[in-house]
């Protein structure tokens, strides 16, 4: 069985790398075991090297036959920038998954899938899974500006209708995804809304769908360490209860999440992240100078 051919199976190799926008990169990683088990909604944790942190990333696409997992990430700090420097053929030291729970895959009826910013990536496999089960899928994707938009074609291929927004109007409709969500809910309603993106966006979408009484799923991305329920770093309050995102989620009922707490917890290490990024960029610059000299 392919799952057990030792060694080369265990190291995750980058097969393909694509630059989606200046700051958002896609990587197709050879990880047959993970690909074999992956379901829409789950995530992986990777570590670039011995000094690296454990980075959680939602699975953007998976192909069990090819044994690949697609990850999409925005370069926001040292770790993601360093990951972005990796090239095709490079190995990723640790690549573990699939973690978390999958979404419920069944026929809901009309499903509205909302993806904001880099959140378009995790929304895609969910839209695809639900579309394959015969749901009518309306997708709404948005970004700050045209340059940051990606996967319009991919989302289009799994949706009956696709709306695109940019905050500054450089592409698609000018404005936020929420206004399109509102329009769709008013005109035709929905049986389920799935929203993935910045916390503020998920909060706004959830407030809106609450008004329309439409069940809503959101996918959360708090800071994590192990991703197996061992540390509690990823705890969130859902329905006044403490949940561990990595094992109880990452998908939760959007109407019950304490977004303000989540937002605060995500800012926990901003200072440290800044310091790590600066130290690293400085070191790189020094090395370049030395190289040039």
């Amino acid at each position, binding site marked *: *069985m392919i*799952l*057990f051919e*030792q060694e080369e199976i*265990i190291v995750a190799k980058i097969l393909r790398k694509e630059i989606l926008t200046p700051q958002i990169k896609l990587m197709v990683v050879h990880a047959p*075991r*993970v690909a074999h*088990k992956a379901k829409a909604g789950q995530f992986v944790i990777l*570590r670039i090297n011995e*000094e*690296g*942190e*454990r980075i959680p990333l939602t699975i953007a696409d998976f192909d069990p036959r090819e044994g690949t997992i697609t990850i999409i990430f925005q370069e926001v700090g*040292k*770790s993601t920038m360093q990951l972005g420097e990796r090239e095709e053929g490079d190995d990723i*030291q*640790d*690549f*573990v*998954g*699939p*973690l978390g729970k999958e979404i419920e895959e069944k026929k809901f009826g009309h499903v509205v899938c909302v993806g904001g910013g880099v959140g378009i990536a995790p929304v895609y496999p969910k839209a695809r899974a639900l579309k394959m089960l015969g749901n009518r899928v309306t997708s709404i994707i948005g970004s700050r500006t045209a340059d940051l938009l990606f996967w319009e074609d991919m989302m289009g291929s799994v949706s009956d209708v696709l709306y695109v927004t940019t905050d500054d109007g450089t592409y698609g409709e000018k404005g936020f995804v929420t206004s399109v969500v509102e329009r769709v809910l008013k005109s035709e309603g929905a049986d389920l809304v799935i929203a993935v993106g910045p916390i503020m966006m998920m909060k706004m979408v959830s407030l809106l769908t609450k008004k329309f009484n439409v069940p809503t799923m959101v996918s959360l991305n708090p800071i994590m*360490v*192990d991703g*197996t*329920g*061992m*540390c*509690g*770093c990823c*705890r*969130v*309050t859902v329905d006044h209860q*403490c949940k561990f995102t990595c*094992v109880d989620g990452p998908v939760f009922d959007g109407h019950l999440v304490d977004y*303000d*707490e989540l937002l*605060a*917890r995500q*800012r*926990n*290490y901003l200072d*440290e*992240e800044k*310091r*790590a990024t600066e*130290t*690293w960029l400085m070191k790189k610059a020094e090395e370049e100078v030395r190289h040039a000299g």
Partner: protein
Amino acid sequence: MPDSRLTGRPKMPQRSVAERIRDFNEVPVGLPEWAAVDEARRCLQCKKPGCMKGCPVEIDIPGFIGLLAQGKFDAAVAKIKEKNSLPAICGRVCPQEEQCENVCVLGKKGQPIAVGYLERFLADYERDKGIGAPEIPTSNGRKVGIIGSGPSGLTCAGDLAKIGYRVTIFEALHAAGGVLVYGIPEFRLPKAIVAQEVNFVKSLGVDLEVSTVIGKTLTLEDLKDDGYEAFFIGSGAGLPHFMNLPGENLNGIYSANEFLTRSNLMKAFRFPQYDTPIKIGRKVAVIGGGNVAMDSARTALRLGAEEVCLIYRRTKKEMPARIEEAERAEEEGINCMILTNPVRFIGNDNKWLRGVECIQMELGEPDESGRRRPVPVPGSEFVIPVDTLVVAIGQGPNPLLLETLPDLQLNRRGYIVIDEETGATSIPGVFAGGDIVTGAATVISAMGAGKKAARSIDHYLLRK
């Protein structure tokens, strides 16, 4: 003249407080050879040794001490290893004062033999000398899967490999060792020692697959399909308990598991050279009174906290931490607030921890554990200002793997039920041991459970 047999117990040489609180290096440095031999000579070599009964794995304690006294170090190490495959670890972290040393005859009138120090001395002697490559037995080709690489899994794997099984350990994290690598800090158990034990097990032919979560990446069914005939579950008690008090999700509050994992496994103490950060405020409080609480408090100190206090709801007498470690913590200036229990956490507008409100406790009637139950004193609430707080009140069984095995019988508290004699679970061919059976316990008991299960797995497969 005082009887040297009663009073001769050596003191463990250790680094000074001023020196050790500034780094993560080991605190006790080990006995010199002459002291170890002298101490071994103090042993009465009892005909009916109580110490062996006090040892969870019944090491032939008088046997190895006798050999040590004669200067036969190699033979002494071999004697320990008949029963204990991890002496360098156990010599450092076993609670000997509650086990072998607690029942030593010499301890009745004077001071017990320092069994732990001697065990450590011999293990370190062997390490310094370089452990020879073990003989690799011919493989019988039969595959056994071990889930979890803590002391129970490592031991079970090693013992099975020694009798010819093809063993693979599956570990969820990226490094092997379980609590030994993510929980117990460097200053108490150097990671190089754990790595050496792991390498030894690998040198026996055991395969180690890290970053593999059983129940997620692979299931037991997948492994059976691939020819695995028996399993040992040693997945530990890794689920952190929280207090369920208001404000517990404020920034600055960690579970001990997170705090220690960041520092030990992820090496946050070397940030930014290592990428994982850890926040440490000027004032740190740790809730709890066990080893995990002590380790957290002493780690906080070394990470640069100005003031560290322990908050414990009973009294020092009831503290489950090892006495030696509690004493070291106190020496290092960790302030212990006993009979104190938190009632809520107080944050600022940005949801950062600023203080913990506590209530004074007093001891009431004994509870089921026989310890007097602490009860709150009404109206005695007060606030301790803190920036960082670690909750170290215990762990439970992690349900991640267990949920995928509906046929596996669990007890009321969610731990795996086993046959005490064999370690067999309710699923044929699946054995279990360590913290996932007993709840958070000790390295030596986990190791003993791994040994017992290895024997049973061998019997099971021979009959199959």
